[in-house]
């Protein structure tokens, strides 16, 4: 039994934490939030130079060739400082799509650039409000040209390449690689609850599109890749939950009311204890997810949904109660509480809402994986 990270992975985690703190920690997120920048370019470049972006990309495609466990510890640290960089879109999603389903030529064309931070990738799936399913996809490709509208697309405002889900000539949902700097692409940045990770609407009118994976395999591949991304994103959420809990704890120790630190009142103490419980359950479920991700276990779909639901809720729980513990100060723009609250609620929707993942979890537990999971 070894449900833990290796000493090397823990050392990488420390290294990434120091790097991010040296750069200002959460202040980087605030800077992007209050500027017109769509992300922190310097930070992103620094992460590329550190080898973090290419951690799980093989060396032959310009990566470092470590494992997805290494990427998990990186994700947790990015989550702790709610880093304003498009790592999730570019690395957990676009690069994973290429690794899982790309041709040799597609991998060679894009992976080295993604690993070096020279290009940013995004995943364009959504087409408007409501739960996303294959039947909702209207975008289509005919004769290698993509037409349709995708909204919202996370990091679509800054991405250079997108993996787009669209119907093929025969009407089957398929995936396409689209150069967003090429012809037939228009984009508009959307207002968002978390502008430090930009959202955009992408309008395609005859943009050149290259099939990724088999025609008609689009939904299947997307499901597999989103499972993998869900585990990495759960680590970001876990990092954010832990940090929000620490902020609340620190404030409860320092803030006095009625002649006592507020953390000595059971109303506050017990609220913090419950936050710790959420974060701890999420961490244990994330470890399960990391194991499944790294080992390619058949339980991966169950583990991904478990980690995803658990970590989404933990981050939302810790972020909202962090504001509550801070009282009125927690609702000021000046304090960092709202930064975590924004990110917690945005991440809870990325890759599909919590209720969608709850549904998937039950589906997966009741079809074949039940013995292993329960």
């Amino acid at each position, binding site marked *: 039994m070894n449900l833990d990270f290796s000493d090397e992975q823990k050392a990488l985690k420390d290294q990434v934490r120091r790097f991010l703190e040296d750069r200002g920690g959460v202040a980087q997120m605030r800077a992007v939030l209050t500027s017109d920048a769509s992300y922190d370019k310097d930070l992103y470049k620094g992460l590329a130079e550190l080898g973090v972006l290419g951690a799980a990309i093989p060396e032959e495609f310009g990566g470092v060739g470590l494992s997805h466990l290494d990427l998990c510890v990186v994700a947790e640290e990015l989550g702790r400082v709610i880093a304003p960089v498009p790592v999730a879109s570019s690395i957990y999603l676009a690069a994973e799509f290429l690794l899982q389903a790309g041709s040799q030529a597609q991998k060679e064309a894009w992976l080295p650039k993604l690993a070096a931070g020279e290009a940013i990738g995004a995943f364009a799936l959504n087409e408007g409000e409501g739960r996303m399913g294959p039947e909702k996809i209207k975008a289509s490709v005919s004769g290698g040209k993509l037409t349709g509208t995708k909204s919202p697309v996370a990091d679509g405002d800054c991405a250079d390449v997108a993996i787009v889900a669209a119907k093929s000539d025969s009407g089957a949902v398929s995936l396409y690689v689209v150069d967003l700097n090429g012809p037939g692409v228009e984009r508009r940045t959307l207002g968002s609850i978390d502008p430090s990770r930009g959202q955009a609407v992408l309008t395609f009118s005859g943009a050149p599109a290259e099939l990724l994976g088999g025609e008609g395999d689009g939904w299947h591949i997307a499901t597999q890749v989103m499972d993998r991304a869900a585990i990495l994103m759960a680590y970001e959420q876990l990092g954010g939950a832990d940090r929000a809990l620490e902020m609340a*704890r620190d404030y409860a120790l320092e803030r006095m009311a009625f002649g006592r630190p507020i953390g000595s009142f059971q109303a506050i103490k017990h609220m913090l204890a419950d936050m*710790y*419980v959420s974060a701890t359950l999420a961490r*244990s479920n994330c470890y399960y997810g990391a194991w499944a991700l790294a080992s390619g276990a058949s339980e991966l779909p169950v583990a991904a949904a478990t980690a995803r639901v658990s970590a989404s809720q933990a981050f939302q729980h810790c972020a909202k109660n962090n504001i509550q513990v801070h009282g009125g100060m927690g609702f000021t723009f000046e304090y960092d509480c709202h930064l975590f609250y924004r990110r917690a609620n945005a991440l809870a929707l990325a890759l599909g809402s919590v209720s969608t993942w709850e549904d998937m979890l039950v589906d997966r537990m009741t079809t074949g994986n039940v013995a292993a999971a329960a």
Partner: protein
Amino acid sequence: MDFEDTPQEAAFRAEVRSWIDANAPKHLEDQLKRANFGDMGITSEDPIQACKAWQKKKAEAGWACLHWPKEYGGGNRTPMERVIWNQEEGIFRALGGLFTIGQGMCGPTVMAWADEETRRRMLPPLASGEEVWCQLFSEPASGSDLAGLRTRAVKAEDGSGDWIVNGQKIWTSGAQNSDWGLLIARTDPDVPKHKGLTMFFLSMKSPGVEVRPIKQANGQSSFNEVYFTDVRIPDSQRLGAVGQGWEVSLTTLMNERLSIGAGMSTGFPQLLSLCMDVEVDGKPAVQDSNVRSKLAQFAVREMGLKYTGMRAITALSKGETPGPENSIGKLVAGATMQDLAMFALDLQGQSGVIWEKDGPHDGRFQAILMRSPATRIEGGSDEILRNIIGERVLGLPGDIRVDKDVAFKDIPTSGRKKAAAAA
């Protein structure tokens, strides 16, 4: 990361598995499988004797109290080997319930605080199940505030050095089956409450000890009241110094919380199978979106507890001490199983009211519903556990304790009286 044994662990597991396979009381297996929360389910023979027989067999082969030293009746094994044993013992582990308090809490306290002669006399029969122990801590007026206890121990006036005990304990699990009890009593009411306590052990057969089973809210009687009337205890049965009882009790309580929280399931697998059996709107409940959302919530709690346990086992396997994350175990399990039972009954519809062993789903959710309130109280209530997490894990300040520096005899005993005086 993996869930595999090390080669040594695998070898130990194989050895354990083959011994259990050859020696376990398999004739009890079907009954144990139908056990419900709070009910071991054995009716074909005396369940106490069944527990003792299995424990004796284990002890003779060196499998009792695996992590204890051999000279005290243990197996001198590592904590990790104990975990493997527990996993392999499986359904037969329920037969160890009779000894959980003795071996999990009283034994470690005796080991930490008694002299060598006492340890060699008291611990081996505790390990082998020949002698059963109970823990005489809680009182009618002191539960969470244990240090407010009132059972008195005073020195006998005959110069023998013996102690004479008078008072009452309550919520004593298994007192009716016990040979020995670990007793905390007040020896000095003139000092603040934590300072005037002393720990003893005594024979439950001592004259003046009376055990009265409590009829519980769920109809069972596993807890008891224990009355002491001029009970004489030799001074040689004192653990720790006079006035050191609180410190001694912390050894017991730390072990209690670890034991109760360890490896708890919330009943989720049973709930999932219920959801495939019962219908909502003419379809299996598991297809209903409201049901699915609730199921997912229970699933992540069950799995979160399971993998928290595996993180602890990982630490043991590496020879490290498990981290503070284990303090969430009973807090999560108790509340979750209560919510889960209410949800299960809701799905059963009006039949949810039926509680029969041969009724719908063996009455198992009804048994959980009716027993789980106790889980949220015993061994540290939810509120005490939140205090512990807040103070010991998160480092928050302790609660204000207005009686901390007051002599015990001067502490108010009724809120009503105080309020009347204030008015």
